[in-house]
């Protein structure tokens, strides 16, 4: 482009810089940097009274990772965390799907209200939602059991499954179902061959939004599971706050990060494959 409009171009570039830089800078300092530091910390030695030993004294090594790999309990806990996350996601899906379908079938005006009714419980503090289950399950004697943990996990994350599902189902063209019916498909066939495949991107998106946070949860297992059902989140918390073995905690965090990235990557790949995002 000829240089005659360079003034406006320069103003445009300055604007872009002025608008992008502050949030970017803030996030680099308070998000990216800490993340990198954590990665580095996993290679350090624990300090005498907790925290990290000074670099000069301890140096860098793979001790924390070797510790994790050597002791099979870590693999077991990681597997358990995945199992809980998977089960929670499944239950959320089973509960959320009929509800989302019901909302979509309602007249347009009532839909916003129904969606709001879904979001409102989410408005309550997450501890309160756990607490609610404590007082319900306590008298029933189900407290401090795997059932309690699952119930709490599902309860806390259900809205995250409902909303993406609903957003997806809302966009389905009703003419498709009519066409299927016209061509001879019964009720079950219409659901299984038309609605379900079209809803998969919403299912994937909702599943990722449930699975990933559940992986990292520690409050639910601690309050509802007692000391028996430790998940990886509890381990990380222990290392950072109770044992103060920060390199181990950092290493465990990196393991969790890797797991999360794997799940996110899988979900993104699956969504891309379907061709509809």
């Amino acid at each position, binding site marked *: 482009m000829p240089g005659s409009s360079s003034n406006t171009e320069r103003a445009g570039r300055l604007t872009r810089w002025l608008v992008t830089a502050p949030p970017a800078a803030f996030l680099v300092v*308070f998000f990216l940097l800490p993340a990198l530091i954590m990665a580095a*910390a996993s290679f350090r030695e624990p300090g005498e009274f907790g925290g990290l030993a000074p670099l000069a004294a301890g140096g860098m090594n793979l001790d924390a990772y070797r510790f994790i790999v050597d002791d099979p309990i870590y693999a077991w806990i990681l597997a358990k965390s995945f199992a809980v996350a998977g089960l929670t996601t499944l239950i959320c899906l089973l509960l959320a799907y*009929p509800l989302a379908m019901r909302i979509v079938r309602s007249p347009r005006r009532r839909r916003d209200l129904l969606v*709001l009714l879904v979001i409102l419980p989410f408005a309550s503090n997450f501890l*309160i939602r756990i607490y609610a289950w404590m007082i319900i399950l306590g008298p029933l004697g189900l407290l401090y059991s795997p059932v309690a943990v699952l119930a709490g996990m599902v309860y806390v994350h259900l*809205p995250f499954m409902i*909303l993406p599902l609903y*957003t997806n189902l809302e966009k389905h063209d009703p003419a498709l179902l009519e066409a299927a019916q016209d061509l001879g498909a019964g009720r079950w066939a219409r659901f299984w061959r038309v609605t379900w495949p079209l809803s998969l991107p919403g299912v994937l998106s909702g599943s990722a939004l449930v699975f990933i946070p559940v992986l990292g949860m520690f409050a639910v297992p601690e309050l509802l599971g007692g000391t028996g059902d430790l998940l990886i989140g509890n381990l990380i918390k222990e290392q950072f706050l109770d044992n103060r073995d920060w390199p181990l905690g*950092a290493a465990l965090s990196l393991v969790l*990060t890797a797991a999360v990235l794997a799940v996110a990557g899988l979900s993104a790949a699956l969504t891309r494959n379907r061709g509809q995002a």
Partner: protein
Amino acid sequence: MRRGFWLWAAALATYAFLYVPLAVVVLFSFNDSELNASWVGFTTRWYGKLLGDADLLQAAANSLLIAIVSSTIATILGTMAGIALHRWRPRFLPFLVLTPVAMPEILLGVSLLLFFRQVLDLTLGLFSILAAHITFSIGFVAIIIRARLAGMDESIFEAARDLGATPWRTFVRVTFPLILPGIVAGFLMSFTLSIDDFVITFFVAGVGVTTLPLQIYSMIKVAVTPEVNAISTLLMALTLTLIALASRFAPDALRKSA
């Protein structure tokens, strides 16, 4: 329609699942009994007890202060990020802005703990909590603003310039009024997230400062008394109002942010 019936039943069951536990909490906050086991009688003494609990009041004040300050800053930074994401789509920005929203909170919490203590040797307290809250709120605001911008006819901005508005005046007279509902919704969302946050605050609060959720957590660990029900009910009422307000301003943005 028989099938309609089953769908309605399933939907109602899920709604019940969502609301009954919370209803129990609210109900038992008026229960005249130390235990949350069975209904004895109606009373408001637990609410009275709250007012006398100095630690709790301090925690509430802290939460409020932190929420106001962090949401203000997060809304400003998040709006800028949302505009940048929509207008220029810089490659690295979506990662920076959206990952704190998507990843498990515990990771953000511990990495900030490490950063503040090890690198900055900062005593944990108000500042660390503020920084943490702003970090995860920026993403939420950005998502809302970006959704709002995406839903608008792009040619409006060209039309403004075509009709004589400089880029700055275009922003002031056209862009800003149109994203204002999104900004308000973003502020309310950040406020709610800040008041409610437990996990990240848990790691970066240190010993000196408590927030409402942290205080509730200690109360829960000590004993399950109706006092907790009472404070929970009050907190629920507050966040309920905020979310209802936010949904008035940007209804689809909230859906997209989930």
